[in-house]
């Protein structure tokens, strides 16, 4: 037993050394790769430094902001965090964004999954025509719908309520989500549904019990994309929400810091860090799904 453990402990080091050797060999054989490292390190620095800088700034005192602009803070002052979390509405905005995004995503899934299933797997009259009607929604920019939609929300007396955001978000997200799901359902074999129906299961059960477990990868893509999309939405949220209580992160942070704290650098950067931290943490944990979701979704243009 003893020997076994030692062997295990040694194994990774051996691999590590091997890797290093390979690495050195490669550089010797192809000096071009060195250039690749230089370029990537410089650009990674450009990408990361502003984010780190924002974090450093949030920990500096008002004096240090001017004497030591670029470097690490000499002492870490966490009191700005206490200040922002207790005196501004930022925590509330984060909460609002979280639940509004969650409800939107659930709404989109609840509507786009069955629609995608029907368009992708079932034969019925008007399948193509109705799908084209929906597809037109991908070509319509959100900005074209804004003005009449605003009047509609006013007429329904929904302005300044979270529903004025959630309902249009769901409607705007539907075309592309359905388009994606239809493509996914089409890639599943038709025999699955046929077999289930022959066995006496209804189409509802086919959708729920047979198809649902298979769609999980597509669902996680949709969740990431639409959650981030709703979380980051700004224009519409700014137009329909004037009540501070229900503002989402984007609008709340913009109005709060644009007006009050634009010149109070530590406070402003603290606010930005607080707002950004949850997203970055989730991103670091679920990198693969995140990158997949964001790139697949953004291709909708």
């Amino acid at each position: 037993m003893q020997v076994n453990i030692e062997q295990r402990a040694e194994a990774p080091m051996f691999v590590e050394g091997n890797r290093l050797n390979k690495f050195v060999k490669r550089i010797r054989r192809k000096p071009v790769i060195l250039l690749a490292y230089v370029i990537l390190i410089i650009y990674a620095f450009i990408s990361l430094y502003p984010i780190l800088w924002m974090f450093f700034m949030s920990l500096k005192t008002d004096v240090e902001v001017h004497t030591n602009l670029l470097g690490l803070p000499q002492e870490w002052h966490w009191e700005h965090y206490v200040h922002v979390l207790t005196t501004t509405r930022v925590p509330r905005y984060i909460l609002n964004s979280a639940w509004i995004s969650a409800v939107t995503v659930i709404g989109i899934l609840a509507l786009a999954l069955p629609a995608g299933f029907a368009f992708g797997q079932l034969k019925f009259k008007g399948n193509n025509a109705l799908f084209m009607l929906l597809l037109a929604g991908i070509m319509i920019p959100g900005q074209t719908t804004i003005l009449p939609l605003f009047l509609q929300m006013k007429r329904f007396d929904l302005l300044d309520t979270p529903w004025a955001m959630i309902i249009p978000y769901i409607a705007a997200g539907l075309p592309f989500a359905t388009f994606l799901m239809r493509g996914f359902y089409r890639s599943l074999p038709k025999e699955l549904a046929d077999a289930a129906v022959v066995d006496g299961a209804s189409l509802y059960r086919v959708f729920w019990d047979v198809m649902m477990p298979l769609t999980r990868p597509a669902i996680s893509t949709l969740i990431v994309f639409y959650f981030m999309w709703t979380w980051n939405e700004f224009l519409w949220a700014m137009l329909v929400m004037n009540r501070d209580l229900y503002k989402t992160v984007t609008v709340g942070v913009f109005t709060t810091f644009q007006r009050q704290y634009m010149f109070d650098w530590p406070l402003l950067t603290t606010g930005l860090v607080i707002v950004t931290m949850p997203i970055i943490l989730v991103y670091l944990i679920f990198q693969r799904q995140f990158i997949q979701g964001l790139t697949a979704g953004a291709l909708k243009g």
Partner: protein
Amino acid sequence: MDIERTMIYEKPSRLQILWRKSIPYHFIIIPLAFYLIFFFIPAIQSFYYSFFEWDGFSAEKLFVGLQNYVDLITDDKLFIKAFTNNIYWTIGSLVLPLMLGLILAVVFNSKGLIGRNFFRTSIFMPYVLSTIVVALLWSEIYNPQNGIINKLIEVFTGEPSRFAFLGNPKTALISVLIAATWQAVGFYMVIFYAGLQTIPEELYEVADIEGANPIQSFYYITLPMLREVTTVMVVITIIGSFKVFDIIYTMTQGGPIYATEVTATRMISEAFSHNRFGYAAAYSCVMFLVIATLSFIYLRLNRRRVGE
């Protein structure tokens, strides 16, 4: 088995048949209704409103036909300015984030590179930030009093620098574009990298044996093989450039002296600051025409790529 089934089989009533035929529609009726009411019909209404002179809340609308569109093109210097800025933004976005993303992807694809995960994670990270955060952060970076850029200029030239990048009409638009580039490059890199992965390794090996240098193999292998991905990315970039709003509104609000106005920012201020609702609707319809045409091209390309 078959005999059993025929034995218990009863002829379904007409109602049952009708019900069974309607089942597929159960899955689409609510989504379609939702989409029509809260997305599609408002888009159509935009066209309707664009034929009126109307402030958005009074009971009377004055029908003016195509007058709004005529005004837009012949009389509205700000529209021309905004639309030109959209075109500048498009060109800039094709040059900066797209090219930079492509170059980084090629570099990132180098054989035998170690630490891919680290590079991907770092370079993609700005893309997960909210545009609002990027805008406020970069406003600080550009700050004339105490911003990073001015500080760097000071460090390199040795002279104090107080340049207001966002306050100068000449530099405002490009400065905002650079902030947007910083946010988007990782996205382009990841997409181009995915495209590069589909190119067979053997092509490069053959080129290597034939004595091609890296630049030649980039030009004669990489670029042609990436043509489809590149086309899609170009179209997406152009569409995005005509829709751009958030980062401009939050960094400069269209100023200074209209230097960074784009169609979307003009539309919002026509509708909500000047109460020219019908006129703003005409703005949004022009945007629709431009973007719908581009999207149509894109969907066509996309369909060919998917191979439907």
